[in-house]
């Protein structure tokens, strides 16, 4: 092992100095080396990985960082079966500034703590070079087709790197997908020592440290590489591999074209689905005696019903199982297994229905925008399949979440290029084409808050009543935060007029009867505390007496936003006394806005955002009797450009100050050249939060 990392072939053994330009860094990586070695004997696979880092430590923080190591005693693979405990070996040496080398006796100095090994590195000081490797070996049996986890990394690290090398050593039956992006060096084949082996190398030098700013998709912009290795035994079903493989394992696969995607996914369109009686209910049963105005309504109704049957209804049972609420629950749970074992099952369940009803559909195969363009597709897991139903307004079906809708395409895929797999049996020809996926706009994704604020009698606390509604892509995250499982289970039970509540067993056991109620009561208490804390953070003030009432859950369709009402008190904040008058920090009721600091102003990266969105606020402040308001001018702001806007207006009407604000982010992406334009409206919104009004005693 030592020979492998530090032996005679180590060309960096004598490199013990760093360039002047990095003298003020915390640490500098002189050499970073990663090795991946894939070998097999028939179905017995051995994956050996090693990483070595040789780092000059330039300050106390770096010494502290490398003064202790903790690693697993033994490693087990996540892949295959009959996994064997593999070695995990650490080697450490220290090179002192005078060139003397001290090797740490790792075996002697390591402590075993349960399954973890820990070592404190002796004799480590500022100015030293620490040179260490971690070698691990995973062994498992494969059924002939095994996928290693994908790796997607930017080249830069938290410290600058002088020299970097990445190595692959493999033999027949191992397929490597690898490509470099955004200017990272290419992987090259080099001569392997054994004729049966193949060796590939990526080398890079002089890599600056990387700091990640907000709104950045690192893999889209920064020098990076991606790879995935696949074991596909000769003679096995290589076409059925869960990856895009090259034709011959000696070739590194760098790109994937649309024909390959078509071959891999065409079976998704088969529409072969067997409705297995009572558990896997035939949609026909649901549609019996029901009439719908359009195909669109039928598909929507089926999606939500299937979501209820196969996700929502079993949720209560699985919660009960986790909470140990008794056997009866567990018996019931076995009857509610999902019929969907894969995306493919899920699609075919719906496709079978669409086909039999002559509704047109196809499958979108997109890649989330943070993965980079679809033309750089390399890894199958980066493709997200979506079933598009071509009704008058298209519907987009993906596997359920309690809050999933089908009126919008997944926001990660929007506004990007994708493949379209055209439906067999529909009017179109069987095939695949590249398309640009639709975008959503600031009209779709809206957060609207109407706040009514009043002061208590002694002018110290504010009472806030706000009605909030979220639409489009805003919804799901907010619903997840605010709607606990028992609320949506109850909602769906009512909606589908479930003849019996599936969550309550018929058992006479008191625990089983009362346990769920007790659990819900406890969760409600925690919920209230959680929301009080989160709203305190939103306003950055002390909040008391919080209550939440959901008006519309927004879980069943595009037209319905998620809407709720909140009431709470803000104590001892946002009001300052000035003699008989008061200064009200009215801007704070917009809640905290993004603060762009000095460093962020110099941003070098482009700007990547989740989706275009509009945040609208109406703030009504009830002016206390005996006071007038002045200082409205500063509440009127208007910054608008192609990247977005912040506009606010304020008027006094019926002894109320009414403020309207509107903040838009127009696009998914802005080039760096637009950053200053974004800052203009972001800063205007921030500045609004700082504005005050004067309550003047009459």
């Amino acid at each position: 092992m030592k020979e492998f990392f530090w032996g005679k072939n180590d060309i960096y053994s004598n490199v013990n100095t760093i360039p002047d330009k990095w003298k003020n860094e915390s640490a500098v990586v002189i050499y970073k080396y990663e090795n991946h070695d894939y070998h097999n004997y028939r179905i017995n696979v051995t994956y050996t990985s090693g990483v070595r880092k040789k780092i000059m430590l330039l300050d106390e923080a770096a010494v502290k960082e490398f003064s202790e190591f903790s690693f697993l005693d033994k490693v087990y693979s996540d892949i295959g079966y009959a996994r064997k405990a593999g070695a995990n070996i650490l080697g450490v040496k220290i090179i002192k500034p005078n060139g003397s080398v001290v090797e740490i006796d790792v075996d002697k100095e390591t402590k075993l703590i349960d399954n973890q090994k820990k070592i404190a590195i002796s004799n480590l000081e500022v100015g030293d070079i620490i040179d260490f490797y971690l070698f691990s070996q995973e062994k498992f049996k494969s059924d002939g087709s095994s996928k290693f986890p994908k790796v997607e990394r930017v080249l830069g690290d938290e410290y600058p790197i002088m020299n970097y090398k990445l190595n692959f050593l493999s033999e027949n039956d191992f397929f490597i997908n690898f490509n470099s992006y955004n200017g990272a060096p290419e992987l090259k084949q080099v001569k392997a020592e054994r004729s049966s082996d193949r060796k590939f190398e990526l080398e890079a030098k002089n890599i600056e440290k990387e700091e990640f700013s907000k709104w950045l998709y690192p893999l889209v912009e920064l020098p990076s590489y991606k790879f995935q290795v696949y074991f596909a035994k000769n003679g096995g079903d290589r076409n059925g591999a869960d990856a895009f493989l090259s034709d011959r394992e000696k070739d590194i696969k760098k790109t994937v074209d649309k024909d390959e995607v078509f071959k891999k996914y065409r079976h998704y369109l088969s529409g072969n689905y067997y409705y297995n009686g009572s558990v896997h209910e035939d949609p026909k049963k649901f549609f019996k005696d029901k009439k719908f105005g359009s195909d669109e309504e039928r598909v929507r109704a089926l999606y939500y019903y299937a979501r209820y049957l196969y996700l929502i209804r079993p949720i209560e049972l699985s919660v009960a199982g986790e909470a140990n609420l008794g056997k009866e629950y567990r018996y019931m749970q076995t009857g509610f297994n999902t019929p969907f074992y894969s995306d493919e099952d899920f699609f075919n369940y719906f496709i079978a229905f669409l086909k039999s009803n002559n509704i047109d559909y196809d499958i979108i195969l997109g890649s989330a925008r943070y993965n980079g363009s679809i033309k750089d597709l390399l890894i199958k897991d980066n493709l997200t399949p979506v079933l598009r139903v071509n009704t008058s307004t298209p519907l987009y079906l993906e596997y359920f979440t309690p809050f999933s809708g089908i009126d919008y395409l997944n926001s990660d895929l929007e506004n990007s290029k994708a493949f379209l797999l055209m439906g067999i049996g529909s009017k179109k020809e069987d095939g695949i084409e590249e398309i640009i996926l639709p975008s959503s706009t600031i009209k779709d994704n809206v957060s609207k808050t109407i706040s009514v604020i009043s002061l208590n009698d002694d002018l110290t606390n504010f009472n806030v009543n706000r009605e909030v509604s979220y639409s489009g892509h805003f919804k799901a995250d907010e619903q997840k935060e605010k709607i606990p499982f028992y609320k949506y289970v109850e909602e769906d039970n009512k909606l589908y007029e479930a003849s019996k509540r599936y969550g309550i067993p018929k058992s006479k056991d008191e625990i089983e009867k009362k346990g769920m109620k007790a659990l819900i009561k406890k969760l409600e208490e925690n919920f209230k505390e959680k929301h009080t804390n989160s709203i305190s953070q939103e306003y950055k003030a002390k909040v008391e007496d919080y209550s939440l009432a959901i008006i519309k859950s927004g879980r069943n369709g595009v037209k319905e936003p998620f809407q709720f009402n909140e009431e709470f008190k803000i104590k001892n904040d946002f009001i300052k006394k000035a003699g008989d008058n008061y200064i009200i920090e009215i801007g704070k009721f917009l809640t905290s806005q993004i603060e762009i600091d000095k460093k962020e102003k110099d941003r070098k990266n482009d700007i990547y955002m989740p989706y275009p969105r509009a945040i609208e606020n109406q703030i009504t402040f009830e002016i206390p009797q005996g006071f007038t308001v002045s200082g409205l001018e500063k509440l009127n702001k208007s910054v608008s450009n192609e990247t977005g806007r912040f506009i606010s207006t304020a008027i006094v009407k019926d002894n109320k100050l009414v403020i309207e604000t509107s903040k838009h982010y127009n696009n998914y992406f802005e080039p760096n050249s637009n950053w200053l334009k974004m800052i203009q409206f972001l800063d205007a919104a921030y500045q609004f939060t700082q504005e005050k009004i004067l309550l003047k005693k009459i």
Partner: protein
Amino acid sequence: MNLYAKMLIVLLLSAKMFAQKDTGPTSDDVKIAKDLRDSYSKDDVAILKSVENVSFAINKEKNGVTVNNSISELLMNINHRADISKYEFYDSASKIETFNLKYRNDKMANYPVKDEFYKDKDLFYNDARVKHVSFDFPVQGYTYKYEMQKKYDDVKYFTSIYFNDEFPIVNKTINITVPDWLDIEFKEFNFEGKKIIKTQKKDLKSKATVYTFSLENVPAIYKEKDSPGKTYLYPHILIIAKSFKNNNKEVVLFNSTADLYKWYKSLVDSMKDDSLAFKSKVDELTTNAKTDEEKIKNIYYWVQDNIRYIAFEDGIAGFKPDESNNVFQKRYGDCKGMANLIKQMLKLAGFDARLTWVGTKHIAYDYSTPSLAVDNHMICTLFYKGKKYFLDGTEKFNSFGQYAERIQNKEVMIEDGDKFIIEKVPMCKPDFNKEIYTANLIIEDEKLKGSVSRKYEGEGAAQFLAIFNSFRKDKKEETLEYYLSKGDKNITVNNIKTSDLKNRDQNLTVDYNLSVSNKVTSFDNEIYIDLEFMNEYKNLEFSERKTDYEFDYKTYFVSNVVLTIPQGYKVTKLPQDLLIKENDFDVSVTYKIIGNTIEYKKTFVFKNAVIKSADMNKWNEFNKNLVNNYNQQITISK
């Protein structure tokens, strides 16, 4: 399978389900739970009854005394539902023999029990292990019976028994059975004001006395931060096993402090220090030093700066210092290792330096009690020119002759051959830790602009230096700027000048230019000024706090902000001054017009580094006024 066999299975199944039924609460249980929840509204679980038994036996092999400690408890869920864990620690000197949980019907509740190393972020490695079990109470009134038996190999490691637990206890009983052959002392702490009933009963047959202590309605331990140590907070019994008779021969255990020292000394005597390992380092540190004091500082500071605190508590290593040559070579050690290295390096440089045991501020005891519970820390005492100096290697940026709050006024036990010396670490005055914030500001473009000078002394300076020097080199500047502006976008800081941020022997100063936005607002002919952009101690409010609040150190903070009134304006409204003077806190907030300036001065003195729980209401009332003051504006008009 024939019908009969099928029937049998059905019957067996239903019998099993039926048997589980009586694990649930009775209607009485539910009533008790509801009543208890009224009293303990913050607790999910209460212990209805907890009986702890302690007994002793002779370990013939080692000629010592072993301890059996058993606990049996009846736990009840008093909230709607509860999910909790029970855990028990043991180490190389103790073992857990029973650790189980039963349902109400006495059937074993087979939740998985885990047995693993106890991980503590402050200890790199320790031999303490923990057995723990997580379980749930599905409904209110549900109960479990918990039983634990633990054995200690040596009575000296069994130091104390507490009444309080993580959960409130309705009825707590401690029975200690003391055989006639054992001479033992029970020291009672924090019994005052508690209705602890004590009885004792002589049992002639077993030749032992049973001491019983019982207490009702024992609240759960407090889950509050910055509290005093548990030895101050809760009633407990310190166990001091003095001696025992084995075959009519008396064996002395910890009869007096001298015995405790004797044991510590035996550990020290078994060390084999090799000062050759650091001779050249000591030479390097002392050769060019002009004075003895410079030599001492060079050695002391070198250890602070170069030896990392990494603690191994492995059996006897929890008490015996690591050899100085090891600590030097490894460049890491715990407090004992560092104290020993300082001692040996100073000795090599010709000074009289000795190991010193100390219980930090966290521990209520002094050396009048011979127990391992008295101390938890080790430092080095330097005897120099007739004075004693205490050197703590675990402190970072501690200046020679200054002492950290945690050891001030605490008794120390200093090596003195076969004898020992008991002394107290001197206590500093609050102004020793003075921190001064001075700002001279003007109003320009609706901004407060000017220069700021900050000065830190004593522990404030040490803390600042330690934190600053722990940051990455490439982030230091940015982090300092962030600290000075409090991360507030309205506060811009530039042109920062500091004193040498490696030097712990001089006052620390930070000077910079400041610009604060959004604190000056003009309405009509008036300007409203909010000079309160730092909000010191604004959030120091304690709702429902039961324990004292302890500061890191005695605090003396002064802020003096001077604002020049713009030409043509006069002050029309100043907030009122605010003063409070109590034993533990002394605060003044004043506003003065001097010439064309407003002087806004705040002084906060927490001279004992504490706000006592008894004074919480007074402090909270004051804090309310303080916030009220901070929420007031200065008005100037034309």
